[in-house]
């Protein structure tokens, strides 16, 4: 693989986690998230330990803490809803700094905040250490439906092509609208979206022709990408650690 990277979420590196086979990382991500979800809300200590398990992965991936925290911020829009829960929740209330907060609401906020942060954190480790193409190849090897991985692959491939096309259209509009207010530009862009749809549709047709020309018969061939070392032992012990915590929390709850 060359040094040019396909997506902005990727953090270039050669850590053991970067060199791990993508299918292993995908399984590890889902297993970890399942453990986080299974952990009872009240077992606050368990979330602390799970955060430690996640920190081990971040450390092994050699991701800078600043980079990791910045990528975590993607969860903010989802967490904002959770912050409202203590104010609108029912049940017993407590006084905190002159405000009356619902106790079940507070637990609800904690539940969302802790579980979302840990799950998003684990996803950040996957996306930072794995190229999009490799993630898709990993899903292929895990026998995910070929059609779904193919569609995701096309989406990633053509998102930039369509974005570049839209960018050119915007430039063309700006060139003719000059300094008119942005509202006007927005209205023009809306009417342009129809044209964009037709362009994308026609491109789809041409791609289909190019696929047929190379013997496409309706089934995407498997990814024949070079395989990375699997190292199940290390990955499984990491996943097991998360589940030991979850099970201990369930039993003590």
């Amino acid at each position, binding site marked *: *693989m*060359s040094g*040019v990277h*396909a997506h902005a979420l990727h953090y270039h590196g050669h850590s053991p986690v970067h060199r791990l086979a993508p299918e292993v990382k995908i399984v590890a991500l889902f297993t970890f998230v399942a453990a986080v979800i299974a952990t009872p809300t009240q077992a606050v200590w368990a979330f602390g330990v799970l955060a430690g398990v996640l920190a081990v992965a971040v450390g092994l991936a050699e991701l800078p803490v600043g980079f990791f925290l910045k990528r975590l911020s993607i969860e903010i829009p989802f967490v904002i809803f959770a912050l409202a829960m203590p104010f609108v929740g029912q049940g017993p209330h407590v006084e905190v700094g002159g405000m009356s907060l619902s106790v079940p609401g507070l637990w609800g906020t904690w539940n969302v905040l802790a579980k979302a942060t840990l799950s998003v954190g684990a996803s950040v480790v996957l996306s930072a250490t794995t*190229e*999009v*193409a490799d993630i*898709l190849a990993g899903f292929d090897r895990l026998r995910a439906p070929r059609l779904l991985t193919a569609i995701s*692959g*096309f989406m*990633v*491939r*053509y998102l*930039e*092509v369509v974005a570049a096309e839209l960018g050119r259209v915007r430039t063309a509009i700006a060139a003719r609208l000059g300094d008119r207010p942005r509202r006007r530009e927005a209205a023009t862009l809306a009417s342009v979206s129809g044209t964009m749809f037709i362009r994308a549709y026609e*491109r789809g047709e*041409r*791609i289909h*022709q*190019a*696929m*047929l*020309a*190379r*013997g*496409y*018969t309706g089934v995407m*061939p*498997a*990814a*024949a*990408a070079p395989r990375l070392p699997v190292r199940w032992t290390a990955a499984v012990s990491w996943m097991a650690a998360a589940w030991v915590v979850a099970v201990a929390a369930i039993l003590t709850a």
Partner: protein
Amino acid sequence: MNVLLEVEDLAYTYPDGTEALRGVTFSVAEGERVALLGPNGAGKTTLLLALIGIVRAQRGEVRVGGVSLSPETYPEVRRRIGIVFQDPDDQLFMPTVWRDVAFGPANLGLPDEEVEARTREALAAVDMDEQAGRAPHHLSGGEARRAAIATVLSMRPDVIVLDEPTSNLDPVGRRELARLLTTVGTTQIVVTHDLPFALQLCPRSIVLNAGRVAADGPTPRLLSDTDLMAANRLELPYGFDPGTIAGR
């Protein structure tokens, strides 16, 4: 020379009534490099698609290496005739260059080692082995064009058909492409508006106009025939005199 590709009386009318091909006949011998010239709307792209049955001609025949085009022979004909489309963004649809070059051989149902060997060989032939893991949208125009050619080479075609290969290339990219095409070695059909490029690479040209073959002969002679050129909306760049340049 052995005749490799035979096109006989090929005709196609689009559903809206546009007659794109009105009986096209020509043949190409093994090892030849032929330019296909003609104005916009002459039917060049339709002809390419009809060669491999993506557009189904209503009349006429296509034979390549003795195999006659029919729905049963589509896979075989599509392996033998490799088409490099005009826009590399259409040709390169997989997440990485490697997977794109492997797409054709994988569709042929070849074993993994064979797919890998052919992918490696095709990438080396266009000098793109270093860029195998890159995403197509991160390639330069020249690199994308070379990758697109590799996706066809990996199928080991008998004839490569290139649609406007010099479009969107800078002069250096265009020169490198010319050199690449002379090293690739298979029979080639180059569809182009770039007449100096045709003169440089192709000893023979076929002029298509209004869905018919208007002329077929040595490129230097066709490009020097001012009446023929004018009648078919072909025009040389300003100051370009094919008489003073030695064609191949």
